[in-house]
């Protein structure tokens, strides 16, 4: 059973949702980044979503973009980012870890090689921010061949046909985007997307996790109330980490509490 399946089964049995914080790997440097990742696990994160820094993160807003620049400035490369995940997984073997990346980093490594390297590092799922369903075939095939779950995005404007494809292709979980736009808490999460969740479930999708604009415990509660299986918080987590390790710990703890 995949770590995601085990996680969602356990949470369901406890009547809980998943809280999945996001940080950019190597921000502000590799050592501090490792401490931040461990801190999130110790304070209740059910799984982690980790960004591989890319020079042109067009799906990200200013907060994650700045984190990316710090990570790149500190010399984070894809190889070092994966090594960081390896360290983390050696410490927490049961923790599901998702990688968020961009198409060119996958393509530059060689699509098959990228997923094999990710698998070797202990990555459980990969979401490629700028690969939509239309272009996903080689990425999904390589992911499946390597034993990594391909995660697809379901945006609020998706057609039924797109949602069907998302449900069919996405493994581990489906990343439901709460609203139009890029990542960030400048714009809050949108209204609950009941119809999209229903459609995904009708097509028997993997668990649905809501992301984009989530930074408050009340939003986690609202996501679960709307039928989501969990919530992802990116920019707000990055901002908490920018403040202090204590702020990051308290933030994760508070968000996780809201998922119970």
């Amino acid at each position, binding site marked *: 059973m995949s770590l995601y399946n085990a996680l969602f089964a356990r949470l369901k049995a406890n009547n809980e949702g998943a809280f999945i914080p996001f940080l950019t790997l190597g921000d502000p440097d590799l050592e501090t980044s490792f401490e931040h990742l461990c801190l999130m696990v110790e304070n209740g994160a059910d799984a982690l979503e980790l960004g591989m820094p890319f020079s042109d993160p067009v799906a990200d807003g200013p907060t994650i973009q700045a984190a990316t620049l710090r990570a790149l400035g500190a010399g984070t490369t894809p190889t070092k980012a994966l090594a960081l995940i390896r360290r983390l997984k050696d410490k927490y073997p049961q923790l599901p870890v998702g990688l968020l990346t961009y198409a060119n*980093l996958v393509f530059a490594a060689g699509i098959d090689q990228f997923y094999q390297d990710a698998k070797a590092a202990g990555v459980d799922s990969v979401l490629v921010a700028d690969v939509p369903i239309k272009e996903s075939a080689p990425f999904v095939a390589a992911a499946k061949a390597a034993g990594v779950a391909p995660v697809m995005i379901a945006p609020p404007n998706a057609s039924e046909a797109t949602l069907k494809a998302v449900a069919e292709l996405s493994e581990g979980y489906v990343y439901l985007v709460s609203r139009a736009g890029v990542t960030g808490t400048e714009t809050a999460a949108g209204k609950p997307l009941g119809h999209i969740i229903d459609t995904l479930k009708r097509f028997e999708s993997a668990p649905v996790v809501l992301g984009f604009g989530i930074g408050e415990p009340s939003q986690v509660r609202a996501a679960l109330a709307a039928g989501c299986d969990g919530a992802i918080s990116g920019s707000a987590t990055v901002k908490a980490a920018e403040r202090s390790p204590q702020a990051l710990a308290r933030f994760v703890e508070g968000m996780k509490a809201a998922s119970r």
Partner: protein
Amino acid sequence: MSRFSPYFGEFGGTYVPEILVPALDQLTEAFESALDDPEFHQELGKLLKHYAGRPTPLFEATHLSPNPLVRIFLKREDLVHGGAHKTNQVLAQGLLTQRMGKKEIIAETGAGQHGVATAMVAAMLGLKARIYMGAKDCERQQPNVYRMKLMGAEVIPVHSGSGTLKDAVNEALRDWAANYDSAHYLLGTAAGPHPFPHLVREFQRIIGKEAKAQMLEAIGRLPDAAIACVGGGSNAIGLFADFIEEKDVELVGVEPGGEGLDTGKHGAPIHLARTGILHGMKSYLMQDSDGQVEESHSISAGLDYPAVGPQHAYLAQTGRAQYVAVTDDEAIEAFKTLCRAEGIIPAIESSHALAYALKRAAEATKEEVLLVNLSGRGDKDLNTIMTLEGLQ
């Protein structure tokens, strides 16, 4: 089924966040239905003639040619309203914006020429325009920033990354992801996700179409080579489109060689031939071995882009077109030569194409006819030239 494939060989595609896919599908549909609509063509034709000033002349630059064996003809896109070829396709996309029932335009601009064209057309069609421009380009191209503002556009300087065109495209894409319902992203070159490379080519095709007829009228035959500068590739693909099937006509794209191809400070991704994925397309891309995108360098803001439109990558790979590079210094030299020889001040972008033509002409040992696309006029570049000359 769509009439255009998203791919040119292995290049092209639609590499955007899923949320933008419906907006691109909507644009594809509007574009293809417009192509079949005589009313659209009539309206666009009227604007091209009475607003933009088409057809542009074909001028034989007799004093420019350094070699009596070689005749050089200039396609005068510098005379298009707005000062560059950019206006041609912006008019078409402005009409498409209306067709899609949208009232706002998002655009990016490098040299500012696309921004100026967009601001112009937005003003004329009663649309709101937000234009992203790299902070460094705002510096280099101040007159164009002011022109855009005069015509009512909002100009948003982009400080991230290298502060040039690449970063302006990133910001425009972010804006579009948030506002695709009400806003059209009016992309300025023959690059980006499908259908933009096709769309921009079809509406820039008029350059080569006119030039072809004008060459036949002037000398009774087609040129030996058609030459244009390549940033993203719109003026070049516009010139090339109607010549691609004319196998006797050499197609030459001129990339910005910056400080020299061996210095790493250039904007010549076709020269490097490393395939990558950026801004919605798979194409040749300047990048490091990890896939991080590298900053390009060119004295000309309009060519300062680390990637190139996918059809050019394909034309290069298949050998139908050849791509060469010209350095900053060579372009400036050609700029000055044209000013003196013919009383025409060309854009520094276009001066790259000219520099290649001059070099080729100087070396020619047999009769040859060269067609050079003079993609824009150089008024916007006077700051750059005066700074180089120590005049300010």
